[in-house]
């Protein structure tokens, strides 16, 4: 039987630790490059003021780096205790990028962080600058490996793994295909460009605060100029890569995009609802819906979802109803058909191990062949029955768990649309700021400076909404199609998860307060207090 209370607590704990960890990570990714830009200007110009600017922003980066350090390790513990079935099935594959992240990227960061922070008077300018750039590269490489692991969970394909029926574990078959999977690549670029935007908003906001107070104006003007230019490039890049990301999601995780856009019934020239309130629909409501009807209030933009998701404004985009009840016209399998294939794969796994115990090699071979039989061909990619095994577990639930076949619409719709809205705000902010600093009008524009100051927390909110869209949108799976979330969890006592949940909550709140207090103190003391 499925222990839902354990499942929900384990999910809540992972979500909480991931969100807190991710408060630190993007700031580190973005600020490391921002510091490297400032130092490059210092080395090129040789002016002491640029050194002071570099050291001030490096200090703020250092606080975040130190406080956020090792908060991600808690996830590794959780994989072992709360998600042991998941770890058993995917550990050999998922562990590889995580291990590389730990060995290469983490040590790269640790080595060059020491030179960047301790080396101002000990190494040459060139060595120090190289270290700052390598520290930034190391931080960003960490994100690459983590997002390769996450990309596999979002869209696992036989291009890089096979399911070993004997060990009941996934095995990596093609390392390059794992690295180059398009889902992971666009996700990585989307995350790092969002992180550069975050750093640019922070630098622009703090510089604007000094301008509003009439303090450190030369320092603030120089910092704001670099932030406005880099922020403009980064915020536009986030949107361009975000578009590619949405295209990948539409074609690899159609239930996610249908839920994100509240698309109940698939249609040609599918719209994007720019502003709307999704209705709370039961599975019966969805079954009886014939067209549209997913929103109480909506302002749709016709054809935009087809254009962005299929690169064709008149293309068909499947809705939730098509994806769970099937659509023969477009070759979409029903949920029940997928569950039946999954059940057969589970039977094969069972038959293989029963035959192995009995020493019946012929039966073992037959079960293995059936397990790996090609059951579908999606856009030229062959799909093995083993890849659909996860669907079989939904037979444990009433009506084959059809009401769990897609992610919840309202939280996905709002988190995704708020993230996109904030993304457009950052573009507008940086267009105005860039024009302002190039024309010299920014320095007297109190309204724009205030907008920059109030925008400081917004990138953290946007990035958290982005993660919620990605991870809630993957539900009901930990590994799409292979392993449902409810099957991934460890059958342990609930009290263990509850106790550690509150311990982590207290630890993260304390760390968060410590970070904010230190950041505020350094910003209040200004650049003269740095180093």
């Amino acid at each position, binding site marked *: 039987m499925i222990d839902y209370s354990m499942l929900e607590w384990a999910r809540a704990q992972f979500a909480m630790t991931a969100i807190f960890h991710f408060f630190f990570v993007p700031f580190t990714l973005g600020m490391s490059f921002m510091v490297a830009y400032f130092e490059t200007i210092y080395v090129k110009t040789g002016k002491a003021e640029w050194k002071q600017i570099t050291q001030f922003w490096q200090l703020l980066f250092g*606080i975040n780096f130190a406080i956020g350090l090792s908060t991600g390790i808690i996830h590794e*513990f959780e994989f072992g205790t709360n998600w042991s079935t998941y770890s058993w099935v995917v550990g050999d594959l998922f562990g590889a990028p995580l291990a590389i992240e730990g060995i290469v990227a983490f040590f790269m960061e640790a080595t060059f962080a020491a030179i960047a922070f301790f080396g101002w008077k000990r190494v040459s300018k060139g060595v120090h600058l190289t270290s700052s750039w390598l520290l930034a590269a190391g931080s960003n490489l960490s994100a690459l490996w983590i997002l390769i692991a996450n990309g596999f969970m979002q869209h696992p394909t036989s291009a890089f793994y096979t399911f070993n029926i004997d060990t009941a574990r996934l095995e990596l078959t093609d390392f390059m295909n794992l690295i180059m999977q398009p889902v992971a690549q666009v996700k990585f670029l989307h995350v790092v460009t969002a992180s550069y935007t975050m750093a640019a908003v922070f630098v622009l906001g703090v510089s604007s605060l000094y301008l509003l107070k009439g303090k450190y104006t030369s320092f603030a003007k120089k910092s704001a100029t670099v932030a406005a230019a880099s922020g403009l490039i980064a915020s536009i890049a986030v949107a361009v890569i975000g578009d590619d990301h949405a295209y990948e999601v539409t074609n690899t995780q159609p239930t996610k995009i249908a839920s994100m856009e509240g698309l109940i019934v698939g249609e040609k020239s599918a719209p994007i609802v720019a502003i709307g309130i999704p209705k709370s629909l039961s599975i019966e409501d969805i079954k009886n819906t014939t067209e549209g009807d997913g929103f109480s209030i909506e302002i749709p933009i016709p054809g935009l979802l087809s254009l962005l998701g299929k690169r064709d404004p008149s293309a068909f985009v499947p809705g939730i109803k098509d994806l769970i009840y099937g659509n023969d016209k477009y070759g979409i399998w029903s949920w029940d058909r997928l569950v039946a294939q999954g059940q057969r794969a*589970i039977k094969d796994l069972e038959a293989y*191990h029963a035959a192995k115990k009995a020493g019946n090699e012929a039966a073992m071979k037959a079960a293995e062949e059936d397990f790996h039989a090609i059951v579908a061909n999606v856009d030229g990619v062959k799909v093995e029955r083993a890849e659909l095994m996860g669907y079989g577990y939904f*037979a444990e639930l009433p009506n084959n768990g059809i009401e769990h076949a897609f992610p919840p619409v309202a939280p996905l719709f709002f988190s995704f649309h708020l993230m996109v809205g904030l993304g457009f705000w950052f573009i507008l902010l940086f267009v105005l700021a860039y024009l302002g600093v190039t024309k010299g009008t920014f320095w007297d524009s109190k309204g724009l400076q205030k907008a920059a100051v109030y925008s400081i927390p917004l990138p953290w909110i946007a990035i958290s909404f982005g993660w919620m869209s990605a991870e809630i949108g993957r539900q009901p799976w930990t590994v799409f199609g292979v392993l449902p979330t409810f099957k991934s969890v460890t*059958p342990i006592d609930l009290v263990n998860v509850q106790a550690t949940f509150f311990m982590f909550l207290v630890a993260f709140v304390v760390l968060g307060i410590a970070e904010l207090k*230190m950041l505020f103190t350094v910003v209040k003391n200004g650049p003269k207090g740095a*180093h």
Partner: protein
Amino acid sequence: MINKIVLFYVDGFKNLSSLGKKLWLIIIIKLVVIFVVLKVFFFPTVDTVVSKEKQKDLYINQLTKVTTQKNKKEE
């Protein structure tokens, strides 16, 4: 060469600012909490207690045990 590297770190730690000292204290407390308190008391390693073969049997049993609605009605 090794002496130079060691001296680099020794010198760096000796000349830490008060903020730097605070940050290192936070890092040390955090690592002690994560690797001593949490790891030892809340996330013990159980691999050494249960053999790999037993683990495999346990997970295969878990992955093949599906109590369908039809089975439940028959029970």
